[in-house]
């Protein structure tokens, strides 16, 4: 199917871009960074084309008009890939931090490759009719807001990882060339904080939107469903991070561990929960 082929091309471009990002860690040729961004941009264009085909197919089912086609594992992974890549291009592109490619883009690749595997294991790109509860204008708002938050947190995770590496380099008393090409510890720490400070309200707004939607659909704002609970846990972990930093003044390694735990919760909320929840699970029921 055309959509699947286009998506695989996009995934290949993302992987290629990420590979360049890794090479750029060790080779200071600026062209690598430029080409990394070029490949990512090309991937996004092809991805959008595949998304366009997906939407056309999706809307052939009357109940699906005019909603975003993310009611399946593939759809969600595809959207997540786009969100992370787009966020990376905007954030790291604007700050000229191509060196961060190796730290952030693997997540986009994981999502893209996961999506490709999904199409192979189920034999399609999972275009299904929307369940009645999902046939609401919230379908076009709530998941997107949450995914943007996830993408921002994914970025922050990469920044935190770079910070840990930078710290290790400097502690070793024999910093390698990578140390001089990565941003300073202060800059990484600051960027990590700013990303999380930006993502936290987005996540919380997304959770609130989910609650309002749930209230419209089922009459209850909050039901302690696994996905709801884990998104709350994620928000609480990042709240701990923000309190540690803003009130207790924590910086550096310990604060980064908290933020990384937060992203672990993001991944669990996005994927792990599907094995637990019946309401939100892509894997539990068609």
């Amino acid at each position: 199917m055309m959509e699947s082929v286009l998506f695989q091309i996009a995934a290949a471009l993302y992987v290629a871009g990420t590979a360049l990002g890794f090479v750029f860690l060790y080779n200071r040729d600026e062209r690598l960074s430029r080409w990394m961004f070029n490949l990512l941009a090309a991937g996004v264009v092809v991805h959008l084309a595949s998304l366009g085909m997906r939407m056309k197919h999706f809307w052939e089912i009357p109940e699906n008009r005019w909603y975003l086609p993310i009611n399946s594992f593939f759809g969600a992974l595809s959207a997540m890939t786009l969100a992370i890549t787009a966020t990376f291009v905007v954030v790291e592109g604007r700050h000229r931090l191509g060196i961060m490619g190796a730290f952030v883009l693997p997540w986009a690749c994981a999502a893209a490759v996961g999506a490709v595997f999904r199409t192979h294991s189920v034999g399609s790109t999972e275009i299904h009719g929307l369940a009645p509860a999902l046939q609401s204008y919230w379908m076009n708002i709530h998941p997107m807001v949450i995914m943007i938050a996830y993408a921002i947190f994914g970025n922050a995770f990469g920044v935190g990882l770079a910070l840990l590496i930078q710290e290790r380099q400097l502690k070793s008393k024999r910093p390698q060339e990578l140390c001089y090409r990565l941003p300073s510890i202060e800059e990484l720490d600051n960027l990590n904080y700013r990303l999380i400070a930006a993502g936290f309200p987005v996540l919380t707004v997304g959770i609130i939107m989910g609650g309002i939607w749930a209230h419209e659909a089922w009459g209850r704002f909050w039901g302690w469903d696994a996905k709801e609970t884990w998104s709350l846990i994620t928000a609480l972990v990042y709240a701990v991070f923000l309190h540690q930093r803003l009130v207790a003044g924590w910086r550096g390694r310990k604060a980064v561990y908290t933020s990384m735990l937060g992203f672990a919760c993001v991944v669990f909320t996005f994927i792990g929960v599907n094995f637990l929840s019946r309401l939100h699970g892509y894997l539990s029921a068609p």
Partner: protein
Amino acid sequence: MELLLAGLNHKSGVPALARDNLAAVGAAEFLRRLREAGWEEAVVLSTCNRLEVYAVIEDAGQAKASLDALSRALESAAGSPLAGHLYLRSGFDAGRHLFAVASGLDSLVTGENEILGQVKTAYETAFTTGTTGKLTNIIFQRAIFVGRKARTDTGISAGQLSVASVAAALAERIFGSLTESSVLILGAGQMAEIAARHLLSAKPAKLQIANRTHERGVALAETLHAEAVRWEDFPSLLETADIVLASTGAPEPVLTRAMVEAALPARMGRSLFLIDIAMPRDIEDSVGDLDHVYLYTLKDLEGIVNENMSQRRKEIAAVEKLVDAKAREFAGWMAATRAGEQASLRHHPGRSLRRGEVGKQEERS
């Protein structure tokens, strides 16, 4: 047209007196003398480690005789015979040598950046004196381009080569720009001053000096426009100082682990960079194990300097290749122009060197 080169550098073994005499003449004066002697196109590169005369002749067959003339000119300026000390080159070799010099291959400190600026200055001086022409215009522009390319494409000029600049570079890896950082110097001796000046050039927000003998600290603080603090006060300053440079003559460590541990809670996880260039050590070794504390001793910094030097040496081969390739490319262009072809070597005779780089000259045209 043919390019000639007669020169000497730090490896030539020229006696000091001769070198001083040559330096005293200066590039501009030397060019003037050459012009009076009938040389229409010449550039003189004069630094403390080298003196090179690049000149252009119309007929390549006259190369040997012309080089002899240049040697004699140099000897008369030096006031002593220089036979055997000078290196003489012509044509391709002269051009290649210029590219190698601009790339830092011929410098005392491989890959040093100053020489590139000096090549530029040499060209500008020649331009002002009116001794530049088609060949020198193009080849010097090219040399500066090659010098820049060598430094971006390879690691020939990467890594600092002095303990103080390594320390400053590490500080920037921790804090980014040091303009928000607070620096504390323990000690007021010469080493402390050198290192302080390096850190000062990064324009830190605050510079404080603590010396056991307060008056010496005050004296140093005045020269550096810094703040002198009492020696007894320095432990509490660990709470606010981001960078601490220790260079006292004390026989025992003055900065203990206990002091740092006491200051850490107030720092709330902000990094602390400790530089210990004292012998014997001023800072207890175990301090380096603490979280968010980075301790570098003189040995560590020297280790990095050595590593940088050997890294640069490794890059020499790559730069040689680049210089060779560019020299051949240039020679090819010259041959093509001689044959009257339009060549693709982009140049605007004299203009691109002028724009921005030789700023003063812009009004002149």
